[in-house]
């Protein structure tokens, strides 16, 4: 078993090296062959490991490969730790990663960087696998940076496009802010406990003082806020949609952005002892959830809508973790990976069919033209908004129920509103894209076609878990398979029970009604009376423009940190660098030049002058030695 675990990340790494170095020459147009084959193998191995854990969820597997860092007392192993939380992540990353690879064969067909794309995807798979397998904070951080690097490379994949390369830079820089917090958290952990090994750190969780522990948790959470695009570090994720759509599906919906949630869930033994930081996690998550949903309603770019939906969903997960509904949070992560990946791949298929068009105002009526995409996307959208009995329903209701049971009624209300907004924007997207008149130009319309099989099959393959996984893992509510499976990880979770069975049921019915109302609202606004939205937009004035402009967060960043940094840098450049440093260097040079000019007449070039110098010098020497 340990060989299998060790092989999971190694295979994509081999694929990366070979494809990047030799891909173009060796495979040419078939550069995907090795990459997809190896990722498929990794996925199979991941499923084998999952099956092992499935049978014995209470027995974590540990693999120590080699000593990675040694410095005095400090050693770090390159080791893997597989428990049921890791196993859940392995399934998400392995399966979606594999399907996205297949999908990319069709989507990226004919791109000049074809081999490069698959090489990066493989590197990403390597880093992501290491991230979820790591058994210590430092290795996790290495992989954390690795996926960040791949994210940068893939967002800026079409680097000749200015907006793409800038979006890549933005993602990288914003993540630096979070990673800085993560690093500090790691330092603090090491200083406090003397180790970075998960088992060692978590074993001492109870002995750490509450102040220090809160700092550790909040600093780690800062890292998660950056990686998982939570307010206020969410700004990079919508821009990351500049990358190819399979990248958006794999990295920016299903796997990498979940790394923050995973890390907080992994550090569960730390967080449960720090109520203050749990509260912060919950507040940030709740706010992000509704904030992003509010922006998503007015966006016109099909991928931006889904991107903001992802931010909102990630907020939902943090809401769950912070409210103490740990299993529900991970459950949501589990199913969200599938249906959000599906939604992105479908949007890619739509964009593909529309010849690169991403603006939903220029789509419409695609229902019959691209039926496979339509049906799978419908499943994804219904799963996202959480309609019974699709996946999102079970996970979302456990989160809302958890918040309700813990007594966070405000959070629960915000969650319900978010669910309503989610229903509105998801079906606004569906109605604008697939129903009504086609608003594209004649030329584009003639070109509309269903994607090739290599793209539609992954859609179908993702639609199935999007539909069924929730019920399989989540039934019955609060006691489904996912609960028993994750119980060894979240060992200390106490359960508030519903006072009477009907209470839980009533909550479910309520949230379902709210969701259906949202769908109906979208139906009225975008299908039945399409002239209404413009009038509402006009009436609501600032509320509308604020949402359209993403609540001006980009502008805030522009003014506060970016401008001030530029001014500060300019002041340093002019005031310090040029005046002080350059001044000192040039001044020294001038001093020597001046001294040299003063001393130059001594070099007369006359032999006798020098001889006289020697003679006088000797006389002086003798006099000094003799008489002083």
């Amino acid at each position, binding site marked *: 078993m340990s060989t299998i675990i060790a092989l999971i990340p190694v295979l994509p790494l081999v694929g990366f090296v070979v494809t990047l170095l030799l891909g173009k020459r060796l495979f040419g147009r078939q550069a995907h062959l090795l990459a997809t084959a190896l990722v498929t193998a990794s996925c199979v191995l991941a499923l084998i490991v999952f099956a092992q854990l499935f049978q014995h969820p209470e027995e974590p597997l540990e693999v120590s490969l080699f000593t990675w860092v040694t410095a005095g007392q400090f050693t770090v192993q390159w080791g893997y730790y597989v428990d049921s939380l890791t196993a859940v992540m392995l399934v998400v990353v392995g399966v979606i990663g594999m399907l996205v690879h297949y999908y990319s064969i069709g989507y990226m067909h004919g791109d000049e960087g074809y081999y490069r794309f698959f090489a990066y995807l493989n590197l990403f798979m390597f880093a992501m696998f290491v991230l979820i397998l790591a058994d210590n904070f430092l290795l996790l951080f290495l992989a954390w940076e690795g996926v960040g690097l791949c994210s940068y490379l893939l967002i800026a994949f079409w680097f000749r496009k200015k907006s793409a390369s800038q979006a890549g830079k933005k993602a990288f820089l914003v993540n630096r802010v979070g990673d800085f917090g993560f690093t500090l958290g790691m330092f603090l952990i090491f200083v406090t406990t003397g180790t970075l090994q998960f088992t060692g750190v978590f074993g001492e969780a109870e002995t750490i003082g509450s102040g220090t522990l809160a700092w550790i948790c909040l600093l780690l959470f800062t890292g998660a806020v950056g990686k998982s695009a939570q307010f206020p570090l969410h700004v990079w994720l919508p821009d990351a949609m500049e990358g190819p759509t399979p990248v958006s599906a794999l990295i920016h919906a299903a796997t990498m952005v979940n790394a923050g949630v995973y890390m907080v869930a992994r550090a569960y033994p730390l967080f449960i002892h720090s109520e203050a930081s749990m509260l912060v996690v919950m507040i940030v998550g709740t706010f992000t959830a509704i904030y992003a949903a509010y922006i998503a309603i007015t966006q016109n770019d099909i991928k931006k809508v889904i991107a903001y939906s992802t931010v909102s969903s990630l907020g939902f997960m943090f809401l769950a973790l912070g409210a103490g509904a740990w299993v529900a949070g991970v459950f949501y992560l589990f199913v969200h990976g599938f249906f959000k990946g599906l939604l992105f791949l479908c949007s890619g298929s739509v964009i593909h069919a529309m010849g690169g068009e991403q603006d939903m105002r220029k789509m419409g009526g695609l229902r019959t033209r691209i039926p496979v995409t339509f049906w799978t996307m419908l499943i994804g959208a219904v799963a996202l908004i959480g309609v019974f009995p699709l996946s999102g329903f079970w996970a979302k209701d456990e989160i809302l129920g958890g918040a309700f049971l813990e007594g966070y009624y405000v959070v629960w209300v915000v969650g319900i509103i978010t669910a309503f907004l989610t229903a509105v924007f998801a079906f606004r997207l569906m109605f604008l894209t697939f129903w009504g008149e086609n608003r594209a130009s004649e030329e584009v319309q003639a070109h509309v076609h269903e994607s090739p099989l290599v793209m539609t099959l992954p859609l179908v393959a993702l639609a199935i878990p999007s539909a069924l996984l929730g019920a399989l893992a989540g039934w019955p509510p609060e006691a489904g398979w996912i609960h028993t499976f994750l119980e060894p990880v979240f060992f200390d979770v106490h359960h508030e029970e519903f006072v009477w069975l009907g209470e839980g049921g009533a909550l479910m019915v309520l949230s379902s009604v709210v969701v259906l109302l949202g769908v109906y609202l979208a139906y009225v606004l975008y299908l039945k009376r399409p002239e209404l939205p413009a009038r509402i937009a006009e009436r609501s004035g600032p509320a509308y423009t604020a949402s359209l402009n993403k609540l001006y967060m980009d502008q805030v960043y522009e003014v506060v940190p970016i401008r001030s940094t530029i001014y500060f840098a300019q002041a340093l450049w002019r005031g310090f660098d040029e005046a002080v440093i350059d001044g000192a260097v040039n001044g020294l040079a001038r001093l020597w030049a001046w001294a040299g000019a003063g*001393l130059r007449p001594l070099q*007369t070039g006359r032999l*006798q002058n020098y*001889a006289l110098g020697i003679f006088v010098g000797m006389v002086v020497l003798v006099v000094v030695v003799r008489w002083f």
Partner: protein
Amino acid sequence: MTALEWWLALSIMLFCIGAFGVLARRNVILIVMSLELMLNAVNIALVAIANFRAGSPAAGLMFSLFIITIAAAEVAIGLAIVVANYRSRRTVQADSFSEMKG
């Protein structure tokens, strides 16, 4: 004055004549000759002191022999430079060696 002092006086006189020659002459050959004078003044001083003061005269004599040998080599090199310089610029005046002037 003792015998040693007489010898030393001779040595000092020769040395000063040599030093004067080195400083005052412009002809390089004369400068080299004056240098020899200075060296020999030192030799006289060494031999005299060795003879009158040291337990064994050998040390002073050894020094003198070394100085004579090295002076021979030095003169050979010095004259070679003078000849080379004479070939290139038709003069042996020391003032003409002024390429390194600052």
